[in-house]
């Protein structure tokens, strides 16, 4: 056993000890803590019924066939022609945000909601009427603490309670 190898063994073990007694921790304690996401996070999508001009660009650009144009029965009858509005299928959505970016009237918007669980497959499909009611609020067993990620020179990443 050469000397340099022994030194390397010692260095490895000492580094281990250093972290055993003084290391940082990077864990985000989800779901007790939930992270406040940055501006522009591509989460679930919000739909504004009134400003929509029914151009169907969102459905055309959707790469996953998640956004579809639904015939809006009531409006079609009222206006005497076929009126279609977008609805979304979250079992397919890949959160690329192309629909939001192409919407010419900003009727589709990003929200920061992403951690929603569903009981059934059907619940995840939102026809226009439901789509326009906004995104579901995630249910937590205990009210979580909002934290934000602080990038830190010494500890890498640190989660601090968010100022609300």
């Amino acid at each position: 056993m050469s000397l340099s190898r022994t030194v390397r063994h010692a260095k490895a073990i000492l580094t281990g000890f250093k972290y055993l007694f003084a290391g940082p921790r990077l864990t985000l304690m989800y779901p007790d803590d939930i992270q406040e996401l940055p501006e522009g996070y591509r989460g679930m999508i919000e739909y504004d019924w009134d400003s929509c001009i029914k151009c169907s660009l969102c459905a055309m650009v959707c790469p996953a066939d998640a956004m579809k144009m639904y015939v809006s029965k009531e409006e079609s009858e009222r206006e005497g022609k076929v009126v279609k509005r977008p609805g979304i299928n979250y079992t397919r959505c890949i959160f690329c945000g192309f629909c939001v970016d192409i919407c010419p009237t900003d009727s589709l918007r990003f929200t920061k909601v992403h951690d929603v669980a569903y009981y059934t497959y059907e619940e995840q499909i939102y026809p226009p009427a439901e789509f326009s009611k906004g995104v579901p609020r995630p249910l937590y067993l205990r009210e979580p603490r909002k934290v934000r990620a602080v990038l830190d020179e010494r500890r890498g990443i640190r989660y601090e309670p968010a100022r609300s």
Partner: protein
Amino acid sequence: MDILKLLFEPYIFIPLVFPGLVAAFLLLLIIIWLERKIAAKVQLRYGPLYVFKPLGGVIQTIADLLRYLFQEPIVPREADKLAFLMTPVFLFGLAYLPVVAVPISPTYYAFRSDVSLLIVMALTTLAPIFTVLMGWSSNNKFSLIGGVREGYLVISYEIPMFLSAISMAILYKSLDLVEIAEAQKGLWGVILNPLAAINMLLLMYMSTSKFPFEIPEAESEIVAGPYTEYSGIIYGLVMGASYVKLYVLSLVYSILFLGGWNPLPINDPMVAGAMLFVKAFLLVALGAFLRAVYPRFRIDQAISIGWKIAFPLSLISVVISLLLIMGGVSLVVK
């Protein structure tokens, strides 16, 4: 009342309570949790936490044990059923058997023998046979390779480990563990013959498949080695066996090198036992800590460490002991 008294008779108390079954079980519960906690701390995370949160998830192992209990133990159709089911029991039993010959105080022991060191060392060599058998009886290629690896490891650590232990026996001129411990009232064995101490520590971790010698059950190569086909509580048994073996060897190591129950303030079996237990526990914990530092060696590298490094070192440590004796270092209580 008589039954309680009977319980404290050494020949019952030592195998069943301390340092035997109950203590081993307690240690098992704590050390598996601690191993995960230690690794987690080094790895910038928390480890098990949510089962009894105030104490950092200390009863996680109990929760795991319950899960093992209720999990269906699956016996592969192609396996040799008798051997498959019997080996874990023998493995666990034999891993823990040597404890009967370990004394816990100068006056408290199940039985005293002139050759108790040899008895303990001999009994510890029985368990690996069943690991090899386990690999064979599973009828799985990965299990087989794991069993063969265990076999190769056994022949490369056994002889140097014996020699290291014997070198201490030479130094103390005794094979009796009680006498060996008593001889270290002044200087501990680790100071007199540090080479043997380091060597034996290394071989102890090697014999119980601790990192960096976690070779027979190397996950990324052979799934879980001999244990691949085991599930449910019989898997729990085989997993516990290697910890129990490490615990027993740590007790012996403490007696050989770390003064046993010395320094002893009062000659009370409880105090002496606690002293011994703490030392053994720290050794097991050190083994757990090494998981966070080392990856694993390859089998051929481990074998060459056994024969090319540990074996010469053990011979040298025998020579050191002989020189010390001839130099007139008299420590033997007679």
